[in-house]
């Protein structure tokens, strides 16, 4: 059993609504410090909504979201970021009216200990080359790098990465896998929403499977092999 001190995020009985639609029906899961955890599930299972609910970006929500021992369920989104959370949205959210570098510098520093601009440019040389290009002029892969890179500057320790491998060429997906591994080595805590199971499986310590707005299974990485059949059934692959 991991101790409570190692727990970075505990989501309990989380319900979320968009207007009248009730999307999450009591989501429960925990993420420990330094862990990489995935949320797997079919399209529409509620994984993106879970991330958005943690950040306060849904219409309304109830339940409990403990981040680093602080209850976040009643905080406005701009306060939640300061609990040390960085968000890379599914649609990447690169701003067209900002240059690459302005996009990179946009998120405010929420904690000390984030990466410096130089370190980031070392890690993503492409972004340095294209620093003054309009954000949305970058290639899909570069935009994805940018979307992740800009939350590494902020000192956030918990990264919510939504489908970062989606729609990208295999070489770029491999580069992203290396990046996630490097971030894990640096001690980041990461939640990945993924469709691409082959990308996520070797990276994660644990997997949560979601269906119809609930977490239905938890699979620690070592048990993955033996529970493959069940997993396939849930993911419909």
């Amino acid at each position, binding site marked *: 059993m991991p101790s409570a001190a190692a727990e970075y995020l505990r989501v309990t009985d989380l319900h979320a609504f968009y207007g009248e639609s009730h999307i999450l029906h009591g989501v429960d899961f925990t993420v420990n410090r330094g862990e990489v955890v995935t949320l797997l599930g079919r399209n529409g299972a509620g994984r993106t909504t879970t991330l958005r609910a943690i*950040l*306060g*970006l849904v219409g309304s929500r109830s339940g409990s979201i403990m981040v680093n021992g602080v209850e976040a369920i009643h905080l*406005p*989104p*701009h*306060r*939640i*970021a*300061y609990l040390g959370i960085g*968000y890379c*949205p599914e649609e990447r*959210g690169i*701003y*067209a*009216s*900002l240059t690459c570098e*302005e996009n990179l*510098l*946009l*998120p*405010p520093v*929420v904690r000390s200990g984030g990466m410096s601009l130089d370190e980031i440019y070392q890690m993503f040389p492409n972004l340095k080359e294209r620093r003054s290009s309009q954000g949305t002029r970058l290639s899909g892969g570069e935009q994805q790098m940018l979307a992740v890179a800009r*939350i590494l500057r*902020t000192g956030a320790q918990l990264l919510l990465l939504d489908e970062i491998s989606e729609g990208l060429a295999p070489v770029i997906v491999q580069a992203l896998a290396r990046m996630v591994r490097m971030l894990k080595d640096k001690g980041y805590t990461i939640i990945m929403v993924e469709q691409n199971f082959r990308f996520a499986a070797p990276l994660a310590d644990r997997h949560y499977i979601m269906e119809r707005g609930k977490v239905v299974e938890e699979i620690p990485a070592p048990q993955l092999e033996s529970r493959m059949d069940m997993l396939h059934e849930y993911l419909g692959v």
Partner: protein
Amino acid sequence: MTEIFGVPIQALFGQLLIGLINGSFYAVLSLGLAIIFGLLNIINFAHGAQYMMGAFLAWIGMTFLGVNYWWALMLSPLAVGVTGVIIERTMLRWLYRLDHLYGLLLTFGLALIVEGLFRYKFGISGESYPVPETLAGGINLGFMFLPKYRAWVVVASLVVCFVTWYVIERSKLGSYLRAGTENPQLLQAFGVNVPLMITLTYGYGVALAAFAGVLAAPIFNVNPVMGSNLIIVVFAVVVIGGMGSIMGSIVTGIGLGLIEGVVKSGMVANLLGAIFDEVPIVGSIVYPVKLLFSPEASAVTIFVIMAIVLLLRPAGLFGRER
């Protein structure tokens, strides 16, 4: 005397100066509207009333409290900006998720109430506000006489416009504003207090209107409807420039002021006449256009241009399709 297309050069420069001054007001006012629309998604119909409030507060300050012009130029926009902050916090805030139309109706209603109150209190005959002493008189430029105060209005407006543009396009704060205009939710998830930013932006946009009002006080008659006359033209300017474009509203504002001046000088009508009058058939086709651009019709020039722009580029000259 030198003439250009049948217009005495003095008269032409005189009209150009008037055009430049009107253009300065168009620019400051449409800039405020553009900023507000960009971030709040609200068409601020109260803008004219807020311009009027700026001018009236300056007059009230001078008449009852002995506040001079320079103090008024700072305090009046500040005071009107605070009323904007209150309006945003208590009313506009509830409308963001609804159609533009609701914000337009609310601010239009507020404009009517404010103008009604001022009319009730001060009547409609209007008050005059003296030109500050330091800016009284003028300079003889040889080809024309330039009143110092009018030169100041142009310079002050341009400085305010370009500083605002620079902050929005080049500074960190500006990157928040641009990002907030594009995708406010994500910006807030990054930790930026977007609701506060929206409030202050409305306050600033409104303060710009009041600033223009104080600048206008010594030139125009200060009266409760001074804003509603002007704001209709400013909305046309905004439509021509493209809703929400910062540089677009500045350039379009100044440009249309100048065009209006040139039309008022009679040059455009003379020019069209000189070219087409003698040409058979074409001459009679151009004739109504010539009338539309005659000095007598200069009040509608901007609306004619608006109609043409809307036909050719519905998003405006500088606007992006949304």
